[in-house]
């Protein structure tokens, strides 16, 4: 698409959203910033399993709120002593207070793989990896076959089983075409490290909201970035490295 075509498309979309949701949206089409490869770090020794990131993400990304609430981050609870075998994970833990002594918490979202199995299987090129490493979906092209969900080893992709519902006063009107713009029913969406924020120089919502500072974010190509510091100085690992998906999401423990 040429620049003019893109602008016309955005104008049409903004008009449609205005009609449908009675809100003035700003639909961004910012391209990837040059020499950028986004990477994420998560300090498992600090995470207290409070799920604030989960709800901040839902708010920021205009995810469906009810029946079912569509969440892009899932925090699982594991008994201390086990890390790799996720079979014993608890997804719906609900104690009075977190953290609990005998457990640790692993937040999981799209790992923005360098070698994403979901992109490979999509029958219609509705999903791809951007130059800055973000795996994105064109919600207007997805046919809803859910093959990518079957292919994802991290449950990084979520399906809009019904028409997404967001209370009018809760719309986040600052959106990106490939990110948090309003979705329709029966298409796949996913975490994009808040593409609408990071391409404008802001942190993802989950990084900002984390009360313990467990979440780190930055440019993997910049030697002075926080994420590079984490990789250099902490002992990091990535989920299911044996699958050769090369995630850009690094878990670590405070040394």
């Amino acid at each position, binding site marked *: 698409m040429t620049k003019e075509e893109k602008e016309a498309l955005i104008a049409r979309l903004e008009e449609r959203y205005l009609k449908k949701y009675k809100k003035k949206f700003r639909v961004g089409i910012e391209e990837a910033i040059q020499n950028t490869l986004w990477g994420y770090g998560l300090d498992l020794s600090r995470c207290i399993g409070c799920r604030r990131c989960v709800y901040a993400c839902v708010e920021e990304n205009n995810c469906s709120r009810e029946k079912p609430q569509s969440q892009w981050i899932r925090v699982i609870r594991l008994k201390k002593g086990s890390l790799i075998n996720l079979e014993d*994970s608890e997804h719906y833990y609900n104690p009075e207070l977190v953290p609990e002594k005998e457990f640790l918490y692993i937040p999981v979202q799209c790992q923005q793989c360098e070698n994403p199995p979901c992109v490979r299987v999509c029958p219609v090129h509705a999903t791809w990896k951007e130059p800055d490493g973000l795996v994105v979906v064109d919600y207007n092209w997805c046919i809803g076959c859910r093959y990518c969900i079957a*292919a994802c080893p991290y449950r990084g992709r979520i399906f809009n089983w019904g028409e997404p519902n967001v209370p009018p006063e809760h719309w986040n009107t600052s959106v990106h075409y490939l990110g948090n713009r309003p979705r329709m029913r029966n298409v796949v969406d996913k975490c994009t490290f808040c593409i609408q924020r990071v391409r404008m120089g802001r942190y993802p919502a989950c990084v900002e909201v984390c009360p313990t500072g467990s979440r780190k974010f930055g440019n993997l190509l910049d030697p002075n970035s926080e994420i590079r510091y984490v990789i250099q100085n902490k002992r990091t690992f990535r989920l299911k490295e044996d699958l050769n998906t090369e995630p850009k999401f690094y878990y670590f423990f405070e040394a």
Partner: protein
Amino acid sequence: MSQSLRETLKETWRFYRKTLRLVLTGSKEYYLWCFLLLSIMIVGFLCYLPQLQKGLITTNMKDQVVWGLYISNFTYLVGVAAAAVLLVVPAYIYQFGPIKEIVVLGELFAASSIIMALLFVIVDLGRVDRFWHMLPWIGKMNFPSSLLAWDVIVLNVYLLLNLIIPIYLLVKTYYGKEPNKKFIVPLILFSIPMAVTIHTVTAFLYNGLPARPFWNASILAPRFLASAFCSGPAIIIIVFQILREYTFIKVEDRALFKIAELMAYAMFLNLFFLISEMFKEYYSNTVHIASLKYLYEGLHGHNLLVPWIWVGTLMNLIAFILFLFPITRQRLSTLNIGCILIIAGVWIEKGPGLVIPGFVPDPLGEIYEYIPNFRELFISFGIWATGFLIFTILMKVAIPIASGEFSHSRYEKEKMS
């Protein structure tokens, strides 16, 4: 209007009129059968409308189990379609009798199965309105990277083959001409490797996902083929018997028994592959055994599929024994029991028994026990009924043509004189 054009139009009109009469007239059983199928189709369609309107939220599928009854049926039917054509080989080698009729019947049966399989994909698609995105040139097909793109191609080529071959043969017969062997034999031969291909590609579609250890086993495609060689012929044996009861097509018992013998070999392979898989998983006992455990013994107290898979396995085992011994294989009553056991047993094994455990537990270890709701059931019944009706109508027209009862008026006159 010139004389010849008028003749052609008249002849065409005559063809449609006679076809319509063939389809619309029949015995009481025929009417009852068609009426039954039509009512199931209507119920299925009425159940589909809300799904189309509100989305797949009206089914019992969730983010943990994203494929359910529809894709289970799809997988099973691809196998059935493949095996129907593969019957052509033994029919030819062992000279089962009316080879042309068997080819026509087998290929039309395959075509009906593929149509059902494609309908199951269509009801499973979230955005049917964007179906065209998958078409080459018009849309943006992710070929050769996505196995789903491969599957769309091979299934459609196979459907086309299975329509062209029987239609060509029937048209030739209708005009009282011999088919051009140079044209049709290569096509028939080509449809045989294509039958293997559609099933292999469908198996690879699951097989290529390292995220799902249950499917990521090399034995998957061989198991697919072995089980298809059981379920497809089992249905064909039943269909043959119905047809020889009601039509002129005379398939000898000998042919049925031979097919049953071949099925015994296929079932042996199927069970052997199952044992190989069981041994590998249970003896090595890694974390990847979880899905298999969920299927066969239950996982952390979740055991919805356990009774189903054991009944299915038992059915296959009993059918294998029935088909192994000539006494039971060569008696129609036990032969038919065996066929029904295989049809149901393989459906459980290659349908829900294959698709659902792939998703349980999910990649983050969550267990959601999927069971289809009534909407999914009725939509599925509706699609099966559609396939049966298509096959019935095809047979109703194809058989009189093949037998020479229904042909071009010029040819009929020649026959008279």
